[in-house]
């Protein structure tokens, strides 16, 4: 009742939710109905043929499925472990910059890569990592470290994904944490200063605890995309030398499903991915709720 009263009072603000909700209904809820395609053979003319689990069986029995799943999980895990904390650290560092001009400059520079497409980023990184005249190897050579062909090395290519992902998204992803930091009451910092807390102590005992719920929410929501592993990135960085360690579920589905027009097969793979995503989101939410009392809702 209280909520209804509040809604009636601020109806104009709530009415502005109409279009975002409409967007989600049209583009995210209604298409769920199309998921039934995963259990059908698609026919342009006439009725679709119900085939049950056929496409799932083909997917799971494919000789590439094991390695594709392994690559997807490894690449996603690496990104979660090594990419996820960087925007948090970056937002804390940006917050510590006193000069507002310099802070704006740093923010602009770190946001920029986000606006580049992976096609362009792949071109930049392939040049940068070139073993003969790439910047990274030239600098390494100065310190006596021999050149490495990172792009064709099975040992290094996944790390190239991690580092290039950090380069592209750390700045942009730090915005949400910076916004959360801005919400922290300045009075808390002033009180801490009076009590003699250093800058580091203020960061550890005031900023970080206030970021906790944002970190948990972003982490849980990111887990929902765990099985994505970054199609655009992998597709543009992939080459014949490293297929066995970088071929992920999305690139596999793209070749077999979309490339050959087997949309039902592609839908089955998407449904499989989506189901894992939901399980991960719900699982992490309930675990987090039980341990810390904080979750997505």
């Amino acid at each position: 009742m209280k909520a209804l009263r509040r809604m009636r009072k601020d109806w104009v603000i709530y009415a502005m939710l109409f279009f975002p909700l409409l967007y989600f209904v049209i583009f995210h809820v209604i298409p769920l109905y199309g998921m039934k395609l995963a259990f059908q053979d698609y026919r342009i003319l006439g009725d679709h043929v119900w085939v049950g689990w056929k496409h799932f069986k083909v997917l799971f029995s494919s000789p590439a499925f094991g390695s594709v799943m392994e690559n997807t999980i490894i690449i996603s895990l690496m990104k979660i472990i090594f990419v996820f904390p960087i925007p948090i650290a970056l937002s804390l560092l940006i917050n510590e910059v006193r000069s507002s001009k310099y802070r704006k400059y740093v923010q602009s520079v770190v946001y920029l890569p986000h606006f580049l497409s992976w096609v362009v980023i792949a071109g930049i990184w392939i040049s940068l990592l070139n073993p003969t005249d790439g910047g990274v190897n030239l600098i390494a050579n100065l310190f006596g470290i021999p050149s490495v062909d990172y792009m064709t090395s099975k040992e290094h290519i996944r790390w190239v994904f991690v580092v290039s992902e950090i380069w592209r998204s750390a700045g942009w992803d730090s915005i949400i944490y910076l916004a959360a930091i801005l919400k922290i009451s300045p009075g808390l910092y002033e009180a801490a200063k009076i009590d003699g807390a250093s800058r580091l102590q203020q960061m550890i005992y005031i900023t970080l605890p206030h970021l906790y719920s944002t970190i948990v929410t972003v982490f849980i929501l990111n887990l929902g995309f765990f099985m994505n592993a970054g199609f655009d990135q992998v597709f543009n960085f992939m080459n014949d030398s490293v297929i066995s360690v970088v071929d992920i579920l999305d690139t596999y589905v793209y070749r077999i499903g979309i490339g050959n027009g087997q949309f039902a097969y592609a839908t089955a793979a998407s449904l499989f991915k989506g189901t894992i995503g939901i399980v991960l989101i719900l699982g992490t939410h309930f675990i987090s709720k039980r341990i810390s009392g904080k979750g997505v809702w």
Partner: protein
Amino acid sequence: MKKVSLLLIIAMLGALLAACSSNSNNGNGGNDPAPSNAGTAEPGASADPVTLKIVYKDEGTANPVSVKFFQELEKALQEDEGLNVKFELVDLAQGSYAENLNLLLLGGTIPDIIYFQGGDQQIADQGLLEDLTPYIEKSTYIKDIILPHNKTRMESYPYLLWIKPLAPKTPVIRADWLNAVDSSKALLENPTVDNYYAFFKELVEKKPGGDKPSYALTAAGDIAEINFIFNTAFGLDTTWLKKEDGTYEYSKVSQNEKEKLAFYNKLYSEGLLDPQFITKQWDTKEDAFYKGEAAVITGTAGKIIDLYDGRMKELNGDGANVVVLPPAKGEAQGFGATDVTKESRGLAISSQSPHKDIAFKVFDYLASPKGQELDRLGFENEHYTVKDGQIELNDKYYSEWYARFWEPLEMKSETPLKTPLLGEPGTQSLKAASDYYTEDNSFIIPEQFVANWDAMNNLYKEYSTDFITGKRNLSEFDAFVEAWYAAGGTDVTKYANENIK
């Protein structure tokens, strides 16, 4: 605040309503497979025009050249054939053509004429493409211009028509560098694998460009382009090789393949093959050629070779004109066998179109001398001029125009051509492709093997790249063969032996 918010909401609602109403005016819903004027069999000059919907890569309503071309075609069909046809270009979203076309067709919008660049088999399997064989048999012009490889492809897959000359990748080098090395004479007279090796070695050691080239040969991303030069010389002249006992073996797991990979490894380890060819794209490959980092690249025979020639001369002077090199000679000579299972791209007519006959008449008209003039030469006074009863092509033709439909090797024009359709290297490359034409024995991989075939191909790609770059020793080739058979090769080989005649 509330007033401002209210105004914003009203403005957004207004915009939404406006967008909806403008869409509804477009009329044609996405799920309407039938073109307009259904039932009009033969449009006379005075009857209402028959509308033919056509979907074609890069030919949308936003392209003024396409719009003009189809308007000119409408006029020509009316004047020369008495056909009252109106073309409606179907626009596709930006991005991969094959994917967007698939989405369009699977969404239920099926134009009368469809250009495919992959993904057609799924559509043909659903009975949505017309068998063109009877139309070709009854045609006035197409049956005379259809090329041997088109004919064979139409026999096994009669849904796609693409009358274009064979266009394998042919190796090219700039003439001044070719003439600057001593081994070129031996190469041109007798292009054995050894002579190719000696030629590459001299190019890199002698560096006819001062400090260039850095390496003799490069390719875009994999060895497929280089295979056009060397596969046949190593006896890899068909996808399935006939063994002494009469059975067939997949060429990529044969001893011949092992020998070829050993040769590529030699080129790579001696710096004759670009150490970065794996990460090269088509644009960086061409850039390396123009800048002189690579001496030899391969390009699609015909117009592409002419474009290389023009660009090379523009950047490095007239002496740097491009010369086509012969394919390597060994067990045999050629640019590899031509896949004749089906056209990999081409034009199809929808089986659901009520105007199938008229759509094919358009195809046939474009094979006639008048249709060929329009399609292959462009617009009069824009791409060519007629002087003293002869057609003179201009620079705009050479730099911009391309035939959207048929390109038989010989063009029968009512007005004689004063200037050739292609430059010297382009013509030379097409002639070489035609001279070395042989048919492959490959077949369409059945659906039950598609997923395995993908895994097997990836296995080959990775092993072969590792063998070439030296990451794996060629002594592991047998292990690769074993893994290939285990990944599904046994079943596909059995299928090949049962089906190759």
